[in-house]
């Protein structure tokens, strides 16, 4: 960034960012509200259209209050969000907070597992590619990263299901756990892996792990592909840095230079980019959940979209929006703490 800016303290930066986060959330909320109210259709026609006469449908719509003035609904909506009262879904009378809690936990489990896989895949390969630039290792690694990211997650998932479920029969094809295990499991956190450990239910742990492998690996591979590229670029830039030259000049072995100096510093910027990947993960989670029948919040969102359940949709998207804002805020703070040049 050109020009001479003095670096502000971390605290000032944090407060400024926080102050900015609030309007951002408000804009997102308004966007969500406007988009949904403009949306076509209503949940009643979606569910009962064709089974009731048009007059009966209209009577039900009026009774449910879908005809009230928009402004009134808007302020009600804002007020509800502030008090965290997201209401109940229209099509199955579930409190939206319960939907978020239960299904959100399922998505959380999937995304964390996928994230771990993506780190395990992306970072080592990215480091290797950067280190051995333009060699066959680099080319293979980059190509792998590109092709894996180019494959839609539902295509990879569908191939994985065919191979590992249908042909080889090694792993189950869908769901978080087998039906009987789901019933037996004592759920406290709703993260089944943790719950099964907490209740020392090892057969359940194995069952849940088996169900988690395919979806987590599929999504993790795709995101890992992006990491390969990012880590590689960072390594390349780091390796061109002056202090690396200095280290080499001092006579340190290439291995020493690369491992102890370059890699550590190359990984630091990666943390900040991880924040961007969260948005990617959430989007990918929706597709993965559809492919593997994972009862996460992405699947529920699609289901509620198809049923025009705007209360549910509103609640879920609001939750996502706020979540992403908070995460990017945290990432920015970490970034600012690490790299003072970023603060303004």
């Amino acid at each position, binding site marked *: 960034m050109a020009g001479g800016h003095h670096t502000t303290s971390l605290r000032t930066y944090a407060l400024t960012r926080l102050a900015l986060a609030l309007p951002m959330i408000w*804009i997102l909320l308004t966007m969500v509200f406007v988009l949904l109210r403009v949306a076509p*259709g209503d949940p009643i026609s979606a569910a009962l259209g064709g089974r009731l006469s048009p007059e009966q449908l209209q009577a039900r719509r009026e009774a449910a209050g879908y005809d009230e003035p928009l402004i009134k609904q808007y302020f009600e909506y804002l007020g509800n969000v502030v008090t965290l009262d997201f209401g109940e879904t229209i099509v199955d009378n579930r409190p939206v907070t319960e939907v978020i809690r239960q299904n959100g936990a399922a998505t959380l489990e999937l995304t964390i597992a996928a994230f771990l896989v993506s780190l395990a895949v992306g970072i080592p390969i990215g480091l290797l590619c950067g280190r051995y630039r333009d060699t066959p290792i680099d080319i293979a690694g*980059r190509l792998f990263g590109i092709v894996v990211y*180019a494959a839609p997650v*539902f295509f990879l998932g*569908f191939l994985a299901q065919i191979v590992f479920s249908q042909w080889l029969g090694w792993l189950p094809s869908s769901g978080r756990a087998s039906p009987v295990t789901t019933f037996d499991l004592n759920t406290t956190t709703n993260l089944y892996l943790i719950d099964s450990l907490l209740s020392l239910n090892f057969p359940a742990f194995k069952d849940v792990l088996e169900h988690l492998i395919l979806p987590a690996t599929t999504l993790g591979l795709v995101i890992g592909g992006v990491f390969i590229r990012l880590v590689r670029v960072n390594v390349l830039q780091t390796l061109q840095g002056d202090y690396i030259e200095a280290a080499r000049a001092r006579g340190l072995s290439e291995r020493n230079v690369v491992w102890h100096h370059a890699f550590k510093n190359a990984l630091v910027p990666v943390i900040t980019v991880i924040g961007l990947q969260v948005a990617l993960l*959430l989007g*990918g989670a929706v597709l993965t959940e559809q492919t593997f029948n994972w009862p996460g919040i992405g699947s529920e969102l699609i289901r509620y979209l198809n049923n025009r359940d705007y209360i549910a949709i509103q609640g879920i998207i609001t939750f*996502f929006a706020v979540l*992403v804002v908070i995460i990017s805020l945290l990432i920015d703070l970490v970034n600012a703490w690490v790299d003072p040049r970023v603060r303004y």
Partner: protein
Amino acid sequence: MRGGRFVAPIREARGVPKWVLWSGIVITTFFVILALFAPLISPYNFDEYQTASGERFGKQQPPSAEHPFGTNVLGTDVLARVIYGARTALEVVLLAVFFSLLIGLPLGLMSGYFGGKQDRVLVLIMDSLFAFPYLLLAIVIAFLLSDKIGQGVFTAAIAISVVYVPQYFRVVRNHVISVREESYVEAARALGAKPGTVIRKYVLQNVIQSVPVIATLNAADAILTLAALGFLGYGIQPTDGAEWGYDLQRAIADAGAGIWWTGLFPGLAIVAMVTGLTLLGEGLNDVLNPVLRRRAIQDVVLPAQPAKAPVEEVGV
């Protein structure tokens, strides 16, 4: 001068970046040709289900001489749908990139150059949009538009472009901000050049440089987003055009029945086209980005020595 900025580095490229770039160009060109000349290349139309004499192709037929990629559940030829799918992909992606640039570029330019309150508000809005999970945003917008203007190429393109406008805006704005502080820009302003002139002559030309890479990588992403929309059912209807994501969705039901050809080929097409565009984008980045660029090592040629004037010997 403008062309030279692009062509020279490309010609100078050596080694791996060169291969990356050229393989990207080849693959992308292949798909562009498929898209442009679809009616000439494809043996059938994308919704054709019977021969001229009225005999049906048959549903879900395995690959054969008449149907190299087989037929799908609607009784249409898979190869035709793959080829026309390239056309749909190209249409949507070009439209989407065009829309995103149309909005993102000027906004980024103005916002970056003039700054002030409008800038802050715009940044806030764009950051909010950018933070949002792009797929969810695209789904909601496609879903909304589909009822107003029907599901089709335009709806998909608009939904996708809304997702990418913030990216263009950000990149352009950042670039403008750094260029704005350069001394030659200051000099121009000191000389009394109007903002419009400054932007046009100096800032824009500088900024345009980064656009091709972003646009190409965005195009790759856009194809994936289009396929995702199609997979979820918010994309293009099969009677309006061929779309790989939609075909994949119908194919999933086929896979369990051992019918692999309806899903494998559209899936591979997506992988190939996105890979091609990504290689192109990465290649361009490697080659144009001064940080990463590796100049070819050229032999140093000293200028020819002028003929030495005879030295007169002076008696010592």
